């Protein structure tokens, strides 16, 4: 089976600070992979390289067997049509209402009518458990947890084949975190998408992931089925699971 994403020996350096030091990883169609690692280990950098928002320095980066390391703006735009993204802080547009945020791609990229777009946006809001009355509010008027749901609704609004989540539970309380975890799990299964989640939250990783990859010092030091992570004898992986301090 061709992997959805294939990363070989991927490097990224900022000045003298080497963040990614040879990432090797494959993500297969239909699976939910979670990359876990401490803060500042380069999770968001890896995420942005995969989306083409940042250029990796060297290595191989393929999506559907096609090299995307040196893609141009048009190729990037075409490729991103199939990818829904939820950013670390939700990244909703403050100047637009909730429903306009959800329908953003329909309104601005696909140029569909406002009525039709709103109808779809309301369906997506319902799918993530939000009521109709939030549709006309602005992002500043809703809570962080609701914003995360809206961001998820925006990501699934145009039926993508791939979903990306950057720290979907960061900044949320434990109860809300588990709601979001369940919601992600449900969406991934129902839509049959390939999902990549980046997190430092072990609980979240176990719930969302079919497989887990552990990022440490710029490399993937462990990768395997989520249920097997406890069996890993890598000391750093153990430390991470148990949450021991250094």
């Amino acid at each position: 089976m061709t992997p959805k994403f294939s990363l070989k020996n991927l490097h990224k350096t900022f000045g003298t600070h080497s963040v990614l030091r040879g990432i090797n990883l494959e993500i297969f169609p239909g699976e939910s992979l979670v990359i876990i690692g401490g803060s500042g280990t380069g999770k968001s950098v890896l995420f942005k390289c995969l989306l083409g928002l940042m250029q990796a320095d060297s290595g191989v980066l393929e999506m559907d067997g096609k090299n995307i390391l040196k893609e141009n703006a048009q190729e990037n735009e075409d490729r991103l049509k199939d990818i829904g993204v939820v950013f670390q802080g939700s990244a909703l547009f403050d100047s637009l209402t909730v429903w306009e945020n959800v329908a953003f791609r329909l309104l601005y990229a696909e140029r569909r009518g406002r009525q039709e777009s709103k109808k779809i946006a309301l369906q997506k809001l319902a799918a993530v458990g939000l009521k109709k009355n939030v549709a006309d509010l602005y992002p500043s008027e809703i809570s962080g947890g609701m914003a995360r749901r809206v961001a998820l609704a925006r990501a699934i609004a145009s039926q993508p084949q791939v979903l990306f989540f950057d720290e979907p539970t960061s900044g949320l309380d434990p109860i809300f975190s588990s709601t979001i975890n369940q919601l992600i799990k449900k969406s991934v299964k129902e839509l049959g998408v390939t999902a990549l989640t980046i997190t430092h939250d072990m609980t979240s990783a176990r719930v969302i992931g079919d497989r887990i990859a552990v990022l440490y010092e710029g490399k993937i030091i462990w990768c395997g089925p989520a249920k097997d992570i406890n069996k890993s004898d890598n000391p750093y992986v153990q430390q991470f699971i148990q949450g021991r301090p250094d």
Partner: protein
Amino acid sequence: MTWIFENLGRVFLAFVATTGRLFLFLLQALNQGLRPPYYGRQILRQIWEIGYLSLPVVGLTALFTGMVLALQSYTGFSRFNAENAIANVVVLSMTRELGPVLAGLMVAGRIGAAMAAEIGTMRVTEQIDALTTLSTNPQKYLIMPRLFAGITMLPFLVVVADIIGIFGGYCVSVYRLGFNASLYLEQTLNFVEIQDVTSGLIKAAVFGFIISLMGCYHGFTSKGGAQGVGKATTHAVVSASILILVANYILTSLLFEQGVS
């Protein structure tokens, strides 16, 4: 002694690097932004923000400037019995210099800061990345509407400023200094030439471009959270204000050589 040259060299290099980055930013914005799709809603919103919502600030500035101009020229000219030149001084200074420059500086404070803060916040909260992932080019969606509205709305504001400034001078001359109303108006209209107004409008368009470009550039390239956005805002206003004053001198001398002035 050498530290002077070291520092001078460093400043010079930083200047060259920034100019280069700014130029690249502009080229990219034009390359992307001049091609469709165009975002009508965004353009209208910027026209509203820059053109309409700046009217009070620009209008008040122009009104008081026109009034002061009349008072000061009266003080000066009465010393050699040339009080009749007040109308000429007011209309000429407003249309050619003070209208565009004061409107430019006021709008730089108001709009340059707002643009840098808004776009900078969008940058540090990943909203600009989100735009890209939603198949919307940030240059087209964010930069182009602002450049367009800046270039078109500043001339409009300057026309308003010219009229209000002249009106301010008229009020002071007629109601305070006791000039004849119709004579004052006649003098104003006879004296002003179309080139005086157009040269002011050309300046205004350039100033509008400078304001939008600085606001967008500093916002777009800001990094490092709230502090970074604060810095971007300051840089946008300061650099736009200085560039407006420099451009004003260059434009005045160019227009002067062309015999327009």
